[in-house]
């Protein structure tokens, strides 16, 4: 997992201009999802999560990231999929959107891929529920399909918050 990230960094340095076409991809079961790399600040292995009561079920709680306290979301639960037990491949992808830092708990991190905008097609309208809400596009790399996620929506939807409020 860490070398995926190292590769990501190297590639970042070489191809700064195409940052907005670079995606970090992760697995949930058999499906591969992608997040634009510009949001990702780091990836850490699953660690102790402190439960906070009275939160939506997909907000697992908070973690201590080198002294900074960050909320974490279980992506499976966000997609209303069944929860699985965490293992040593489970990762937390730490994202930063404006002033908000947040972690996504995923089954495992897959790769850091370049997906040029031309290879991204809008999601079909008739889809299962969670796809509709959070997938902003479908990317194709060779034979692989990567579901590109709208991070802001994933974080903010149904939380009754605005970006400014956090």
């Amino acid at each position, binding site marked *: 997992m860490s070398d995926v990230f190292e590769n990501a960094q190297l590639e970042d340095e070489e191809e700064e201009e195409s940052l907005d076409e670079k995606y970090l991809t992760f697995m949930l079961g058999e499906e591969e999802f992608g997040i634009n790399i510009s949001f990702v600040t780091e990836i850490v292995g699953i660690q*102790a999560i*402190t*439960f*906070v*009561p*009275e*939160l939506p079920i997909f*907000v697992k709680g*908070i*973690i*201590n990231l080198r*002294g900074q*306290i*960050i*909320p974490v979301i279980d992506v499976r639960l966000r997609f209303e999929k069944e929860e699985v037990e965490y293992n040593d491949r489970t990762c937390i992808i730490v994202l930063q959107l404006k*002033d*908000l*830092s*947040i972690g996504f708990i995923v089954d495992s991190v897959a790769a850091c891929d370049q997906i040029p905008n031309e290879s991204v097609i809008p999601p079909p309208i008739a889809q299962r529920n969670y796809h509709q809400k959070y997938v902003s596009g479908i990317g194709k790399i060779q034979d692989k399909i990567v579901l590109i996620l709208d991070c802001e929506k994933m*974080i903010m939807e149904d*939380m*009754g*918050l605005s970006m400014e*409020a*956090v």
Partner: protein
Amino acid sequence: MAVDNSLMDMFVFETTQLIDQLENILIDSENNGISGNIDEIFRIMHTIKGSAAMMMFDDISHLAHSIEDLFFFLREKNPTNVDYAKLTDLVLDGMDFIKNEIDKIQQTGSSDAKSDQMRETIRQYLEDLKAAHEGGAAATVAGAGAVGAAAAGAGAAGRAGSADASGSVGAGGGDDVFSAFEFSTQEGFAYVITVRFEDGSGMEHLRAFELVNRLQNISTELRHIPSDIDGETAMDEIQKNGVTIIFASELEHEDVVAYIEQTALMKTYDVKVKALKRPDDAAAGAGADSGTSADAGIGSAAAASPAAAIPAAEKPEAARPAQQPAAAQGGGGDSGGTGKQGIISVNISKLDKLMNLVGELVTSESMVSQNPDLNGLQLDNFNKAARQLQKIINELQDVSMSVRMVPLSLTFQKMHRIVRDMCRKLGKEVNLEIIGEETEVDKNIIEQITNPLMHLIRNSVDHGIEMPDDRERAGKRRSGTVTLEAKNESGDVWIIVKDDGQGLDKSRIYEKARRNGLTSKSREELTDKEINSFILAAGFSTNEQVTEYSGRGVGMDVVVKGIETVGGSVMLDSSEGAGTQISIKIPLTLAIMEGMIVNVGATNFVIPITSIRESFKANERHNIADVNGEDIIMIRGEPNPIIRLRDRFSLNSKAESYYDGIMIMVENETRQVCLYVDAILGQRQVVVKPLPGYIKEVRGISGCTLLGDGSISLILDVAEFLL
């Protein structure tokens, strides 16, 4: 001049400070006389004048100027029979104008009101003063406020030979300029120089004076046109036509030019030189009307690059947090030399940063000294050293907190003005007594409580204290007393606003409360305190009219909210006919607190020590009963509801019966409950961190903290359980 945000901040800050200072001086002067303060008032106005002019807020600057003139007169002439009340009003009005403009400036960056009328009023007042003082024709003070007769001893002109200003030196360009002047020296050179100064450079006659003064060192037979370089006419003359200086010197042309070039702010200079020879050699030199004409811009401007091209360089130390513009650290003035206590002003963002770092230091220290790796090791030396480290860190923490502490005096003193104004306008007589103003609170807190306090004071004067006649009829003294008191008490600061007015009308309050649906209980079921407290609730109002000062009851709950924002609480007590007292409790320390770590299932909580009365393990001897579905435990005859944190937060916990875990008795002024937890893990000083903004408020949790082993513990909001 490009206006920098930080400069604007500083202008606003300093001017506001000065105005506050001035107000206090004036109010004090009403009681103790003004003469001791005139000089300081003058200096304050002088400073505001200068700064406002720099920022191009001309109306403010001119207004300050006219007040400065007024006080200049008072200082110099010390007239008797001055109507000081009128004087104070005038100045206070001026202060209000400036304050208003400063507010506008803070919001919008510009000031638009005109001060002409006010200036005219002040000018008229000054004229009257002068007339009265000099009992006759008022001496006209020169417009620019210059002192009277300038000392005539301009040494420079003294040595001049017969200077004649009527000679039109400039006319007839081709003529031999030197023919107009006579020189007795027959050695060296004769010079005629004309210097024009930069437009707007100011006091051009003095610039001329400076040059003339300097030229004395290298010349003889010096004279100048205009011959008189004192006074405003000279200044105007020189502004228009420049100054012409005629002299003889041993120095060569280039040397004289170099000498002249050391003069600041010259626009142009013209140097004509002629060798002075014996009469028989005159022919050789005549007509050699050589000289240097230069656009002074070349010489003196050489080093000055166009200001616009250089971007503003930021001072390295200026803190620049995301939202706030950085104000450079002010006042390097460590006045150790004058024996006064050195004071500097520091940007509050730096203090915030300091607090955060100290907080992290406390956490880090516990992560080291309580690191799980050390469990079970025998570490005497290490422990000793760790204790020393803790001791030092504690001290550092105390000091860094005290750095942020500011006495309430400035805030309290503001209230004098408010009371005074209100009394005047409402026709009441009120004495404001201030006690304990030296009490200090965190700077953040001061900002949050100033408005609520003002509101409370206004309430007291407007609704509390009765009109003098009414008071007399009620057997009270005609003038009412409002007491504003601050004191420290076990980790909290108390601020109490008390008046001896008419108190709260409980019947009216009760009726209003019922009408607004705040209660459904009958009058008898409620205690007096509970009835009075309705005033603090949102959506309550007994004022049928909106007065200018207090508005609708929408004020009180805003006051309460403001206090609660800083973690404080408000209590109210009143006695009809006798008066009302409002007590505000504010926690002293914000971010670091002493807490007890408890455990419920897999979750750890921190309970603030200050809320804990005692903790114990329940056993059969304790009387635990079910009362209306609520479990109650009797302690020393008092019923304490038991709250299972496990249930409140839906946690998994093994502790079943009340005898397995621990009871933590927590309390506030009125209630007492027992929190039931699995175990106590210890007591520790913790750094309070807010829950991430993404996580909306969780009832019962007020924040979180990092424990020594890196785990996160939630901080319990005890108040939630004491409702």
